[in-house]
């Protein structure tokens, strides 16, 4: 009987796979972190937008309504002046547009966005496990996109239990079943890395877009002023209210 020594050899593709998995793991962490930052910014801007519309937007809507009434009255007083008729129509259209954008005034005051450390941890976890750019399967990607959108909404709302449910749901789903074959797996991992890098670029572009937006510019100015003890949102409200008062006076003339 020949004694055969079984030496465990590591195939080249397995070595490469291990290395790529490490790279993927690093990217997953970075991706989750960037998604969190992007989600934070979107949530903050969303909350700011709601506050802005609640305090300033509805007043602009009131002002535009008064301006439309002034223009309509002028048009009625001078029926032969076509320019005034055009002005009145334009003012009415602008008032409708502003009202539809600002929405109806509601009594409940929107609050600024804040996220707890636990929420951030859960979001990172969801982003790592469920991110659509970490799969190469079309059906799985669709499922992940749906879940990621739900996770974003839940994060903006501060809904912790929903984030936990999303994690559980995905971990128990058939898409989480794992496959076989080092060669095939290597290809999958390489593709996931490529997708993750692509997504990182997209997040960067989205962040830049958000940072360039008027909404962010306005928020930054308000935040900066707040650090110096000024409530600029309140000042804006006062300014528009002053214009509203002027418009009301003009209507009474």
């Amino acid at each position, binding site marked *: 009987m020949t004694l055969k020594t079984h030496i465990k050899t590591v195939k080249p593709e397995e070595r490469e796979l291990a290395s790529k998995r490490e790279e993927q793991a690093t990217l997953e962490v970075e991706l989750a972190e960037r998604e969190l930052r992007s989600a934070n910014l979107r949530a903050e801007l969303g909350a700011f937008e709601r506050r802005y519309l609640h305090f300033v937007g509805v007043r602009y809507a009131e002002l535009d309504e008064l301006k439309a009434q002034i223009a309509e009255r002028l048009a009625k007083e001078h029926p032969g002046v076509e320019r005034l008729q055009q002005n009145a129509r334009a003012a009415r259209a602008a008032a409708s547009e502003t009202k539809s954008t600002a929405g109806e005034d509601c009594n409940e005051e929107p609050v600024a966005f804040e996220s707890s450390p636990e929420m951030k941890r859960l979001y990172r976890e969801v982003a790592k496990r469920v991110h659509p750019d970490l799969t190469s399967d*079309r059906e799985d990607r669709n499922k992940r996109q749906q879940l990621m959108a739900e996770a974003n909404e839940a994060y903006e709302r501060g809904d912790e239990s929903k984030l936990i449910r999303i994690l559980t749901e995905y971990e128990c789903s058939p898409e989480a079943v794992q496959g076989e074959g080092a060669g095939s797996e290597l290809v999958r991992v390489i593709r996931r890395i490529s997708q993750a890098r692509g997504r990182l670029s997209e997040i960067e572009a989205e962040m830049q*877009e958000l940072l360039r937006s*008027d909404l962010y510019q306005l928020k930054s100015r308000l935040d900066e002023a707040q650090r110096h003890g000024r409530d600029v949102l309140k000042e804006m409200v006062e300014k528009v209210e002053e214009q509203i008062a002027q418009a009301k006076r003009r209507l009474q003339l």
Partner: protein
Amino acid sequence: METRGKISAGSIVPAGQRALVVRSAALVARGLRDLTRDSNWVVKKIFTGYSSALAISGLGHVCFISREFQRGGQYRTGDYGQRVVVYDVELSTPMLALSVPNETAVGSQDLAAAFAWSPTTRFLVAAWAGWQSALHSFDLHGKMFLGTFGEFGMVPKYLVWSGTEKYFAEACSGGKQACLRLWRVRDDGMSPGGPLYGQPTSELSVPGWLERQTYEAEFGEDGAFAGYGRTVFSPDEKTLASVVEIHGDWADDSIALLAVPTLKKKNAFQAQGHITDLCWTHDGRKIIYCAAGQAYSLAVETMYFEPLPFGAELCVCHAHLPLCICYSSWLKNSAKGRLFLVDMNRMEVLDEYAAEGVVNLRWSSDGAKAYAATQHGMAYIYEPTLL
């Protein structure tokens, strides 16, 4: 080997980018704009150099005489004579240069000049001491010189169109040679010479009634008739109000109210000091005039006048609202001038803004804005939120 997914035939499926949708974009931009501006005035530099005579159109186009015309960042003087250059106040850019055929360049360009934009801003009538002694008309739509009419002995002090472009008037100084001329604008379509040509419909030289009732001084002496100055048509185009200027630092000018188109005297009013500007209120019931730095109102029916609670040298009333935009170069305890709005119902001064050297004021054709321009090429745009 464990994997987290399966390779499918479709391989990589790119994830859709999440577009940034801000439903409130317009309202946010509005808030941002309102936040950054501290007044309803916007100030711009529209041209370099100097021009004491310029005119703003209802679309915010400023014209004056210049040899230079900047296009594409470069000034061009070329072989041209002086031309009427037109700048867009809103865009702060040169629009076009209108030349007059066979006119040659002259040494000085800050010679006496007068301009009048038609209310539709299609036509421009100009007079300049460096050209042939006649009124020059231009078509801004065709960007061309139309021709000359109304030869004169002295460059007019003031040119004006009526509100519906039905009449055109020219006011000249020059003592004995002074005259006020009125043309009825041709309405038979666009002819080669433009809407204005030939002899005036009516003309008024030295007002006999003024000589008899006021002064016996010889022409050119203090107290004698000097000529016609600022002139404006009433909103209904039935009356022409023209300043009758009198020689001398301490002389008092008058306002003549003349029937259109005959130029027959309807009434006259003697002011205190020299009148620098006048305009009709939107309802045509009053004339606002500026004399010796003070603003006054004159009721046309009763000729009752009263000083207004502000000083001004230039004034223009809004066509449909009880608003008047004014300029005063002189402020108590300050060397600075100011532009401001007046609510004519309350006599309340609104939206003051420091400004110097303003030579022309104008409301925009749609009445939503007002423009002011200075002799040093600065433009002020009044953009109120309520108009």
